[in-house]
């Protein structure tokens, strides 16, 4: 990889180029000229940046290359090391969670088993804490041990709180209700899954039946599914 410092700076520079958020209705009320005669279009179309590839579009919008730490204490870059060129499943958890996390973790173990049987590809699972202030790598390692996860392609991740929070927001895991969002026991139970090179990204429910979760995740792996997904008659 190139100099990561430069990459990181470049990342923030690109973030700045992302479209600016705005109130939709506000722009409707303030942003349109009502009844004014349509102005002649400028000579030639306005110029736009050249189109981006699908994966580049997704990377710029959603995948800041922040540094995270695994339960083994290894420092990893979110995009370069974890996402790029991979098929992945992402979920949220925290070490002392006794709500949705054990269910999701147990489901993911079953999903891993099904997918190893049915899919030829490597699939990486990333479980990221929502309590980076509390969850040291050791705490996450303990969580993995308690839940019987010993899998080189399943990483438990923590990091700087601001970085973790940025990722949580970028990946749509934050709740728009600030009261709910502050309550870490109510963190999103949804899974994000995707195939980075093909820019296929989906979301499914982490508490669903593992067989169904596996089928959904296989959506991101076109044609490599050994069985045709089944639907009972």
């Amino acid at each position, binding site marked *: 990889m190139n100099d990561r410092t430069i990459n990181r700076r470049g990342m923030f520079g690109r973030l700045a180029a992302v479209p600016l*958020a*705005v109130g*939709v209705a506000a722009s409707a009320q303030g942003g349109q000229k009502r009844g004014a005669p349509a102005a002649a279009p400028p000579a030639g179309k306005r110029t736009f940046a050249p189109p981006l590839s699908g994966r580049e579009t997704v990377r710029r919008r959603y995948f800041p290359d922040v540094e995270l730490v695994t339960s083994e204490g290894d420092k990893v870059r979110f995009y370069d090391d974890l996402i790029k060129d991979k098929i992945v499943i992402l979920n949220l958890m925290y070490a002392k969670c006794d709500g949705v996390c054990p269910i999701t973790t147990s489901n993911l173990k079953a999903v891993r088993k099904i997918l190893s049987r049915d899919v030829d590809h490597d699939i990486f699972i990333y479980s990221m804490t929502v309590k980076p202030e509390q969850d040291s790598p050791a705490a996450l390692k303990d969580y993995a041990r308690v839940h019987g996860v010993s899998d080189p392609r399943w990483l438990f991740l923590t990091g700087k709180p601001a970085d973790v929070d940025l990722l949580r927001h970028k*990946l749509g895991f934050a709740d728009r209700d600030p009261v709910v969002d502050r309550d870490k026991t109510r*963190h999103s139970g949804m899974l994000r899954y995707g195939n980075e090179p093909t820019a296929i990204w989906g979301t499914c429910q982490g508490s669903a039946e593992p067989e169904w979760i596996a089928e959904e995740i296989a959506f991101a792996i076109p044609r490599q599914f050994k069985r045709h997904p089944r*639907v009972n008659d």
Partner: protein
Amino acid sequence: MYYNANGERIARWRWRELLQARRNRLDLIKAGFTRRDLVNMGLLTAGGMLIAKRGLSSRAYASWGSGTDCHYDNSGCGNCASPSITPFLMNMPIPPVKQPIALSSLTGPAPTIAPNNAINPATGKAYEGRTRAHQSPIGTDSRLPFPATKIYQVTQQAAGVTVSGDLPTQQLWTFDGVSPGPTYVAQYGTPILIRNYNNLPSNNGGFGLNSVTTHLHNGHTPSESDGFPCDYFSAGQYYDQYYPNQLAGFLSTHQSTNGDVNEALSSLWYHDHREGFTAQNVYKGLVGHYLLFNAFDTGNETTGFRLPSFPDYDIPMMFADRCFDAQTGALAFDTFNIDGILGDKFMVNGVIQPVLHVHPRRYRFRWTNTGPSRFLQLYLTDLTSPSTPQPFWQISNDGNLLPHPVQVPAVALGVAERADVIIDFAQYAGKTIYIENRLNQPNGQGGPTGGVVAGGQGFLCLKIIVDLSTVSDNSAVPSASTSYYTLPSVSASPRVTRNFKLDQDRNGQWIINDKLFSCNTSRFAVQQNSLEKWVIDNGRDWSHPMHVHLEEHQVTQGAPGLYGSDSDDHNDYQRWGSQYCWSGCTSNSSTGVNLARKDTVRLTPRSTVTIKMRFRDWLGRYPMHCHNVIHEDHAMMLRFDVATTGDTKSNP
């Protein structure tokens, strides 16, 4: 420690963003944009604050922006800021009418009752993606000949499409190269077979899955041809869909009359329904119209109900809102926003803010809200007198005709809801009239609303210029005494009452009666032909247009009306969820346009609706789901089956 301009403590990355926002602003001003340009582009608030960039995820940053609370305000909490465009320069496209072909002209093997699982040597996959046979009595009943009376072939493919002269050509996913796709014009009593080829590319440009299932929305369709979400098929395959175009009851409750004419449908639409990816694929363009005529709704204004003639004076219109990337101008989908996506550009039939020239006479417009998440309340607006009400006649509420026309000030449409309206442009000869969405919706969840804004203050979707020549008008003058169809009775005692509680669990997962969705789990079995009563309870302060496949229902309690005025108290769910009536009705039972057969019912925040229907003629799996396609995908849906023997689960 980092602080914003108000002295509040903020995260370091947020501070960096603010810093970058200031740099952006200086750069933009240096580049020659005036403050007014920036406001118009949505990059600067009226107060002069550059809106901090947030990517495209409204969920992500909902509570940020201009210090306002996103639940109740519109500033700084939307989804996107598309490039500015000059509106009303392109004519509104009218999708071409799809033409049938000879059976022998189909690409690939002849249609078969059983799925054609033979391997296509060119692709290495089965020719056909269908997994179930066309059900009996297709091919044995004389009304259901196989292959079919008319044969069509359509191809789903990527194509370059112009949505605005100010934006680059968009790489959309289309049917036959256009979006909306071609319009099917079908006749009752004439079954059709559509061979649907999936030629979509694996390169999705950032969103979309080239695995599809096409649902004929509102169709009385056998399960295997319905476009069930889990009946998807791959690129390189085809799927033969058989549309009987028969009146509901033709094999069951109304055999002697060949179905119940009071169940006739008029305005349907088709769209992709791929499980987990419907929103992406529909957003990318996979939608189209399907019109159904019969001996009453003939398409000819000199016969039957004498509705304005198709195609000259009967025009289907699909409304959609979209985001475009400010840098590249490309259609932008907010992949990880699972609350609902709002666009800031309004398309009608695939073009942003188009123009339609009309003759000074009556027209039938068929309006469909294709979403993905926005609710609409459409008005006619004369900008020279924006506060003057411009009433018109609504003749359908979803895909059929009302018992009689209802004069309305506006039409409210949740995603997938439709309304046919008759507008007499003779009264506007020489004038310009806009179709305006005045519903102020602050977020993709669909509630609470910000109310209804004053005329001229909403989103102008379509500019209609009444400048064509005066022509004859043989269509009937709509009035409250005009009769179309009679509502079929649902007053019998239901065989079963089923209760559905829509909610989210503590961790943001959609649940119906505390259960999650799976394609493989059928939650209950409806007994064919019997009357079902469903009570659907919306447990949250969000809104959901709930759609049931196969049969239309009648909303007997809790039907929503028009959204309130801009003085509406948006905290007051009770009122918001209650019925707004055009002319003073007070009860919660259906009146006016709610005396209708529906396929999608809008559930306002914390509201409860009761619907009744019979599932007839066809067997197999069907879904009920929220048609905010973002909610649908994640997965506010359940599967039920229609069977010869049903169960009586009351909380399935």
